[in-house]
């Protein structure tokens, strides 16, 4: 492990290496785990949530949103891979912001990460409950209370995360592979290539119900196809070779998701009227039911369950790492910066975030929770182009060795910034009050941090990377 730390660009200095050896997080993960972490968090977006884009703009609008969101996330993956291959530390984008932009930005980014993932975890738990309730209804047990299943799902996954990262992400790898295979099987089984097909695109597709304004509005939930892929870099301190594994796992993940998202859209809109699809709780499971095959229904039911569990699992992993990193830096009470003496996991952060996830999973509507998560993600993506532009300006390519250099700079950054602007407008259309409430929250906590909390933070100790002095300072 020490070799990895010494030879990898961007790994922290002596103090952090010593911490990693003696009481830090374990470096046990490979590229496949990174793929599983990224895709595992996001794949649930194909099983539920993306279809609200159909509700906001119609079927074609959801496809256009899927591709434009794909461009947005390709920019995110490219930018993130370069910075992460250099800033390989727990906390991911939070740690990047701390070294490149400044402490207040880092605090906000840390909160974006925690809330994006914790709300996504809550949304996953709600879906588990909804799926159990639906299956119970189909088997003659109507009226089953889903809340115990929501609590059970969150508690079980928190326990798994508490016990160790390797077991957690190996579990994610297996169930993510199953969930992704289920989408491929559904596509192949319903495709006209293999004989009679239940797909009826010609009869079910309609014009854009809201015109081109609806296409813009659909970008809001278009993000849900891919939201969370950037979470791969949260595992930076637990990967054996961050400079190689992180870019590989992230870019392979976004390619996997682009394929899965397009297949999901194609099958779903060919089986359901857009008005139903736009409000469905479990669209892929519904698509399987519509295919008329019991085997597919069972497969996609299990696929939905596995996708939600894999996603919630990854979310607990990522949110707790961000919370842990902020505690370690005293941005939050340092009590959260502890590592379990036996399992080497950030156990206090894991436990603390459980009740927050439960509050939202048990008390708020699904689309509100998803919007809360999307907004936190969107604020984070808006930070990324600013981050990479400042990174290249403060440390030009020849000053720091990068594990990966993204091409065409600053084109991806400008594209990402423009697409974020469009998505803010999309959220404004239909969910404007939540957008304002969310920004008001971040303004208040920013002022709280700057004028109160920051006094407990050591200044120079925040900068842990073995980098030269930034240009212009």
């Amino acid at each position, binding site marked *: 492990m020490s070799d990895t730390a010494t030879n990898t660009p961007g790994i922290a200095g002596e103090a952090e290496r010593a911490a990693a050896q003696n009481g830090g997080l374990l470096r046990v993960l490979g590229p496949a785990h990174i793929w599983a972490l990224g895709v595992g968090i996001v794949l649930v977006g194909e099983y539920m949530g993306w279809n609200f884009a159909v509700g906001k703009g119609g079927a074609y609008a959801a496809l256009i949103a899927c591709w434009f969101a794909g461009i947005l996330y390709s920019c995110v993956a490219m930018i993130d891979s370069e910075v992460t291959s250099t800033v390989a530390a727990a906390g991911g984008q939070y740690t990047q912001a701390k070294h490149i932009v400044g402490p207040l930005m880092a605090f906000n980014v840390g909160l974006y990460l925690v809330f994006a993932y914790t709300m996504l975890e809550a949304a996953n738990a709600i879906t588990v409950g909804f799926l159990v309730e639906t299956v119970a209804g189909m088997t003659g047990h109507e009226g089953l209370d889903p809340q115990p299943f929501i609590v059970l799902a969150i508690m079980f996954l928190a326990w798994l995360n508490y016990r160790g990262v390797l077991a957690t992400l190996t579990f994610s790898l297996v169930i993510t592979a199953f969930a992704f295979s289920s989408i491929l099987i559904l596509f192949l089984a319903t495709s006209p290539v293999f004989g009679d097909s239940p797909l009826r695109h010609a009869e079910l597709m309609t014009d854009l119900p809201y015109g081109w304004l609806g296409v813009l509005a659909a970008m809001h939930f278009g993000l849900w196809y891919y939201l969370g892929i950037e979470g791969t870099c949260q595992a930076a301190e637990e990967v054996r070779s961050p400079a190689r594994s992180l870019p590989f796992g992230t870019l392979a993940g976004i390619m996997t998701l682009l394929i899965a998202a397009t297949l999901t859209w194609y099958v779903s809109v060919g089986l359901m009227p857009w008005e139903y699809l736009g409000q469905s709780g479990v669209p892929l499971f519904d698509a399987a039911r519509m295919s008329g095959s019991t085997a597919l229904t069972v497969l996609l039911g299990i696929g939905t369950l596995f996708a939600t569990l894999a996603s919630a699992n990854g979310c607990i992993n990522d949110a707790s790492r961000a919370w842990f990193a902020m505690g370690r830096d005293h941005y939050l009470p340092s009590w959260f910066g502890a590592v379990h003496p036996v399992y080497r996991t950030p156990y206090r952060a894991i436990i603390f975030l459980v009740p*927050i996830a439960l*509050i939202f999973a048990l008390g708020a509507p699904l689309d509100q929770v998803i919007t809360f998560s999307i907004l936190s993600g969107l604020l984070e993506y808006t930070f990324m182009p600013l981050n990479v532009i400042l990174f290249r300006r403060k440390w030009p390519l020849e000053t720091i060795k990068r594990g990966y250099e993204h091409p065409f700079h600053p084109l991806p950054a400008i594209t990402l910034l423009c697409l974020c602007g469009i998505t*803010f407008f999309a959220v404004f259309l*239909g969910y404007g009050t939540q957008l304002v409430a969310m920004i008001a929250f971040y303004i*208040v906590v920013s002022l709280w941090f700057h004028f109160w909390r920051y006094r407990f933070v050591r200044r120079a100790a925040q900068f842990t990377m073995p980098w030269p002095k930034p240009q212009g300072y």
Partner: protein
Amino acid sequence: MERYTPPPQSKLGQIFDVLVLLVLTVGALYVPLWLGLAGSAQVHQTVDAPTWESLNQNAAMVEQWGKLGFADAEAAAPLITARFDYSFSIFALVAVIITVVGYYAMMLKLSEKEYRDVIAEKFGKE
């Protein structure tokens, strides 16, 4: 540059800080919900005695609604007639743009001030 030494924080102070964050977080979602301001701007058009034809559903759509468990047009009408209201005032849009841009501007400015202290203490002033 003189090294900054943060004051120690008592356990009670740490707990209070966490509670502040917790209250703000829960408030950000639940206050708009309690005030009835949150939620999608979705409206349901009322259709008297709806039929599949009046809801603009063709034969294939009707068949799919049937498979989904909607036996008649009346059952499916609330879903079919639900529409987002995308009308908005320019004033509201400008207010949101100012809020978002102002938030980032404030954050970048305050961050830069803090960052200069960090760099000065870490590397020393040239």
